[in-house]
């Protein structure tokens, strides 16, 4: 039966079908007459787990803990377990997932498929740094386990599900002494100060990120708040409730963001933050996913959805690149719903979002203007050698990606080597000509 799947940013709709294996034996009965692709929570901004004429394989029944070495901090879990649920369990055992994605419902399979980063990127890198092994299902080879020293592993992490269905993974954990976090919210008058603060303090803090107002013009561009967070050794009694995925509700809310409301919303956020103490302590469950319980932010984009642009610029090029972005925003009078910064450290990996530099995130309502705006951003990205985040981008094409990622061809050939019959396919595979 045809099944409509929409990308999380609501800009892409695919017509395929959906199956939901419940048992291991079901994997051997997957329909192979059409391309298949694993699907987790479906929270990639693009249609990575769906495609026209593709069969999406909902893996959320594979959500169990297979083994846990509490002494050495190593856990093996099935890929469909949500990161938030797993992390809450681990907090109780004085461990955490070192890299957490933005929303608790995102599955471990999704974290691997896009080699996600968290608020702690500078210190702990991306997801690949913590994965010890992966068990994959491929119709030709059945279940096989691969480790970081293999090509299959390197292609699978950040491979968008194109090497096979991730069934389970062994992950190294980070030890914590307590379950509380200190948060210091530091006001910054403009973007330059924000980046300086982040760059100089990145070594000192576990999590570091900034919220910035990109709607302000001139010298106030990027005024905002830098959040500096550290784990505390203190504990308090926590009884975390299961997370509920609230991101797919209220689909029919009209667009509430426009030039005026976006500016107001940014101002309201700033004022609300100002009401809170600059230095505060919150529990780790609450600190792990700042967007949880703030899902209204996404609903207000309405049924037309939104677009996000996330890019890493080298630290010696960011100023010139951001100056051009600022100019484009002003020229096009583009309302920016969200502006955010992070500091990245690491090596580029295939076509995943990794490397060193300043990570800039921009959200805008989806409309005709946003497409032209993003095309202008693409030019800036290419000019300054930026790397874009494919999990957040529903419209990047093969040409852009080839220029952004030097390893594109190598990655493509690797995927073809490990899936010569091309059993795996998705909208993103077609769009990026992989």
């Amino acid at each position, binding site marked *: *039966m045809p*099944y409509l799947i929409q990308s999380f940013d609501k800009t892409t709709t695919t017509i395929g*079908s*959906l*199956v*939901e*294996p*419940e*048992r*291991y*034996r*079901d994997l051997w009965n997957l329909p192979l007459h059409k391309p298949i692709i694993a699907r987790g929570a479906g929270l990639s901004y693009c249609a990575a787990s769906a495609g026209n004429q593709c069969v999406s394989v*909902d893996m959320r*029944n594979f959500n*169990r*803990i*297979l*083994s*846990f070495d509490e002494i050495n901090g190593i856990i093996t879990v099935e890929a469909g377990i949500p990161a938030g649920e797993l992390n809450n*369990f681990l907090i109780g055992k004085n461990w955490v997932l070192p890299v957490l994605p933005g929303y608790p419902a995102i599955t471990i399979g999704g974290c691997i498929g896009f080699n996600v980063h968290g608020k702690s990127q500078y210190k702990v890198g991306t997801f690949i740094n913590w994965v010890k092994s992966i068990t994959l299902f491929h119709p030709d080879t059945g279940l096989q386990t691969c480790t970081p020293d293999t090509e299959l592993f390197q292609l699978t992490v950040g491979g968008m599900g194109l090497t096979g269905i991730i069934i389970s993974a062994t992950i190294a954990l980070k030890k914590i002494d307590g379950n509380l976090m200190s948060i210091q919210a530091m006001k910054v008058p403009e973007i330059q100060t924000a980046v300086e603060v982040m760059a100089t303090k990145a070594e000192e803090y576990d999590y570091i990120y900034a919220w910035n107002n990109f709607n302000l013009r001139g010298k106030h561009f990027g005024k905002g708040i830098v959040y500096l967070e550290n784990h505390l050794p203190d504990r308090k009694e926590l009884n975390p409730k299961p997370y509920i995925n609230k991101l797919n509700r209220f689909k029919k809310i009209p667009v509430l963001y426009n030039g005026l409301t976006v500016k107001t919303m940014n101002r309201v956020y700033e004022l609300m933050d100002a009401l809170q103490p600059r230095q505060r302590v919150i529990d780790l469950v609450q600190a792990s996913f700042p967007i949880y319980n703030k899902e209204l932010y996404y609903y207000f984009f309405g049924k037309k959805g939104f677009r996000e642009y996330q890019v890493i610029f080298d630290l010696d090029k960011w100023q010139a690149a951001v100056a051009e972005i600022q100019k484009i925003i002003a020229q096009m009078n583009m309302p920016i719903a969200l502006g955010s910064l992070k500091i990245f450290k690491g090596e580029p990996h295939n076509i995943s979002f990794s490397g060193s530099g300043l990570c800039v995130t921009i959200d805008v309502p989806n409309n005709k203007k946003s497409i032209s705006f993003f095309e202008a951003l693409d030019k800036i990205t290419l000019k300054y050698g930026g790397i874009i985040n494919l999990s957040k981008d529903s419209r990047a094409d093969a040409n852009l990606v080839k220029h952004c990622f030097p390893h594109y061809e190598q990655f493509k050939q690797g995927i073809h080597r490990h899936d010569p019959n091309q059993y795996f396919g998705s909208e993103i595979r077609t769009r990026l000509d992989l």
Partner: protein
Amino acid sequence: MKQAAIIIGASSGLGRALAEAIARTGTDVIMSARAEQELQILATHLRIRYQIQAEVIPLDLATLTTATAKNYVDQCFEKMPHCSQVYITAGIIDELDKGTEAVDYLPKLMQVNCMGISYVMNACCQWLQNRSANITLISSIAAIRPRGSNIAYSASKIALEYMALGLRHHFAQSPLRIQVYRAGYMETALSTGKKLLFPVAKPERVARVLIKNRHKDTGLIYVPVFWLPLSWVLQYLPWFIFKKLKF
């Protein structure tokens, strides 16, 4: 006092959701189904996640007799003598079960959905009749009124319901509670990607209802509850209208 539950049909769908929800309350579990490997994985998960005792005893309802059913139940209570909850969610359907000429599926379907479960239920009653315990049986909305598809399935479910409700009457003076739930559409592998006439319920939500109600002396209950008024409509719909319905 530590509690324990037996879940039959725990390898998928509602049974699996029940195992997780029961384990979350700190109750030990014995899980049964044909798929032993799946159950072992689930048992490992429950032990790690909830620090409970989780055991697996494979069970194939298709080959069960009164003697093997008794052995199975004895084995369960020997493993966990403190067991006071039994949940039976197992059942099968057959695609040919829509009035086709060949009814080769019939013996197996009746054996699994009715005979096998009845043997187990009977054997459990013998162990639990003097305890404050519950035997909770999951039936189906297919039992509301016979219709042109899932014919034998509906028949097996209504027979099973009568068996359970008969036992309920028989043990009315004992502290044992026998409950029957008619479950509506549920979000499982069978319903994935299909357009259904009525909303599907999450197995986790249904599991919570079952656990919450386990102390109540209830007979036949619909879950989700909106199926109760719908059942009245279906039940009393005049034949000249009902015969035109295709579902």
